[in-house]
């Protein structure tokens, strides 16, 4: 880290912050996608997203 310039350090911090924000907002869609992908009978999106029992 000692050899890195200030600009590089800023870039790394910015990159980490951006990846953290992406992980924050994409984690739940990723979990939903895996659930949809690994189910043989692909459920529809509303059924997958809604916690209410299907009518």
């Amino acid at each position, binding site marked *: 880290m000692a050899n890195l310039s200030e600009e590089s350090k800023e870039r790394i911090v910015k990159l980490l912050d951006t990846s953290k*924000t992406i992980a924050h907002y994409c*984690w739940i869609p990723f979990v939903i996608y895996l659930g949809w992908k690994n189910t043989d009978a692909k459920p529809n999106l509303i059924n997958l997203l809604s916690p209410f029992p299907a009518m």
Partner: protein
Amino acid sequence: MHSYMDYIVRCFDTSNQWDHTNVYPAMVATPKAILDFPIPQASKVDINKKSSSHSANSLTLSNIGAINGSIAYFYSSAPLCNVVGSSEISLQDAVNTYQFVDSINNKSYNNNNNNNDKNKNKNKNKNKNKNNATLLYGKLNFPSNILEGLVIKNFSQNSRILMKCLSTNSNLLKNHGILTVYFQQNYPKYSLEYIYSSNENLVGFRNLYNFNLGSTIDTSFETINNDDDLSSPSNKIFYDNSRLSIGTEIWYGISNMTPGISNSIRYSTYSTYTGKPLTITLSCNPLIGLLSSTYTVKTSVNSTLCSKYDFNVYSYESDVSFGCELWNFRKRPLNEEISRILDTDHHATQSFQKLMKSKNLPNAVTNPLGNVDPSRGSSSGKPANNISNIEKFKDLYRTIGFSSVFKLATSLNNHTINMLWEGKWNDFLVTVGCNFVPFSSSEEEPGLKSSASSSSSSSSSSSGETKKPVSFRGPDITKFGISLQYSS
């Protein structure tokens, strides 16, 4: 009541043959469930759904302070076959209650039985797939926008990695989040856990070792009585029904240089005659000088009693806590009869058996103790039909359809009583709880003393006898809450 996340993780552990009783925090789980049960705050509604064989979701709404809630999604690579809705779930599985701890020999016996199955190869393949199972969980709280994440990745039946994450965009947490990683190894004889948390760079180590007391008794007995077939699995169950576990946890905060250590001993056993289990624990924290001992016994199939004694060796402070759990059956007459059999009368009379048989009840209910004669004693008694009283007690407990459970806990120092009712109402799982002070006293403030009594009080105060007027009020409820849970 278990939260939906806890329930799914528990089901995931069960399907992957992960023994959740064989880890360090589980050593005091039984007394904690009976004495330190959480009281719901305000009102809360949970709506959960298993949307497919591999995924589930959950919506929570509560009014703690303001209206807030959360939405959660689950994914499991292994099918969530054993996850059922609130209408089908047995209350024993839904409620955090007495934890049955099996002895090591009992477990190995069960494993041996499984290995002797004809579908040995098929099971092995299935287990191999299950052993590498993954569970992912994400929960977004609103309006705070805090994300909770959980990843469980099994490497084998005995080892796995568990990651918990807390993330926020606000400045509520340092570095906008906390990541905690657990590497766990769980074997019948011992379990190890290595932990790292980004919060203050905390590192920790937990271990637990099991000592089977029954095996020594069994070996010595075999040498004395070679005539009896003591090596049979039924006899192993009969004798080896206890487990002694010793565990330690060590923590060190690298950033704040704060250490932490605690040790625990747990002894779990079952009565050979009645099959009723009991658990004794002793915990010690040498840094703060706290010694805590508990004794928990399941006195019958529908009641549990627990007591705890805390003592601080540095300050000499002590406290005694009591707690109990009472389960209610769906059918009252059956409840009374079964309790009567288990508690008082081991030799069910012929007339009573006829009465129960006339109601066409299953054998486990009509004759929970089978044909075992308790008077024969442990030295000569052989369980009928290769099923011990312990298994019969467990089976009876599992099969009975409980409708509700009432929990009560108090301690001498706190002067408060915690009460909790958990049960089924239609297809809902309901939890109602309160914390109250039964006899609250209020002392009048000095400024509010009446001027009429000032002359008389001044004479008494001058002599050093200052008596403040105390008025007793009725019960003072400090916490009350209701929680509804519906799963489909």
